[in-house]
């Protein structure tokens, strides 16, 4: 998983094994200025990062990004 992550630009992440052989946990630390309006729109950095992590998981586990 860590080697796939390094294909992505400019994000430092920590990797650890999840308990019970459930895969890999990823922790990304993020510094940002809170912006309530961006948050309402779902465009604040934590939301965007969560989406990015989710797409990364999709890519690693299924080979593709889910698209409707």
């Amino acid at each position, binding site marked *: 998983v860590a080697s796939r992550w390094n294909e992505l630009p400019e994000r430092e992440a920590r990797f650890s094994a999840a308990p019970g052989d459930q895969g890999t946990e990823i922790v990304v630390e993020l510094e940002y200025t809170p912006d309530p309006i961006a948050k309402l729109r*779902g465009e604040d950095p934590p939301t965007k990062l969560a989406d990015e992590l989710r797409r990364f*998981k999709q890519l690693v*586990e*299924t*080979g593709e*990004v*889910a698209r*409707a």
Partner: protein
Amino acid sequence: VKAVCWMGRNSVEVADVPEPRIVNDRDAIVRITSTAICGSDLHLYDGYVPTMKRGDVLGHEFMGEVVEVGKSVRNLEPGDRVVVPFPIACGSCNACSRDLWSLCENTNPNAHLAEKLWGHSTAGIFGYSHLTGGYAGGQAEYARVPMADVGPIRIEEGLADEQVLFLSDILPTGWMGAEMCDIGPDDVVAVWGAGPVGQFAALSAMLLGAARVIVIDRFEYRLRLARERGAETVNYEEVDGVPETLKELTGGRGPDACIDAVGLEAHFPGPLYAYDRVKQAARLESERAFALREAIMACRNGGVVSIVGVYGGLVDKFPIGSLMNRSLTVRTGQCHVHKYLRPLLARIQAGEIDPTFIVTHRLPLEEAPRAYELFKQKRDGCVKVVLKP
């Protein structure tokens, strides 16, 4: 291509939409030969599920012929006849590997929306709002099926569409409703709702060995259908309280397990109906949960309440005290269809289950607007509509 589109509350139209195309390598395109309207489509039609957009293609019960496959789909080829499960599942995440297919972690592109409402997301679902992915549905001439190497089940010749179509949702949903009850040989199982899911839940409870199955509804023609298959019935408009009636029918104990096959638009003959209906219309609560409240109150001490009727958000007057103090177990979920496809197909092939008895209407896809009204208003003895593109 033609498709049934949601155009706002109480409005569907058959419109021309762009032809679905392969987007990902694990996709397939299916030419649809049969598709059905689900009771849960009525929740969309009636406007109770948020995040629907005008023009969304409806439908999550469908089957047909594979016409094209993506590069990674090696188990299917053009010409194969398939039934498609309504949840989209990757087959490799934690949820899928635990047989919790409707909770696949990788198929809902709008997982962030679902997380806001529900805490965590579910799998993507065909034609079921943007909360569950915004995927185009199967009430259409063609559909794009993602994760086609995992979901669709191939059907051999010799079985008619209507014998296998309901593997897509309602047959396994009814089965799971009964299975979650952990039925023992002396058990009495009560089922709220004699619609298609309730009928299949009752039938499944009998196949799983229940001593008695009691079905509750208000439409005599639906109750008759359940009686013809060996269930006892209660018309709730003709009795003084369903929990009390069930008590009388079970020596005061109550049913060992209660299945809610109604969901968020229940009806109820009493003033509480007006209370919930008004709050729901004003969007102050999203569900009318009469069936669920009754199922909890009626269940015997230590029994199981199994919920397969669909709920979307929040409910008032939830009898948590009854649930807690009487050691009830609640089991629920959107059906993990993939888990049940093969065993239920085997039961259909063996002649143990004939799901065709629920079909009352067969209409061309073009007549979808009329079909939705027939089904919603329970006109013309309507139990289940199959649309033919």
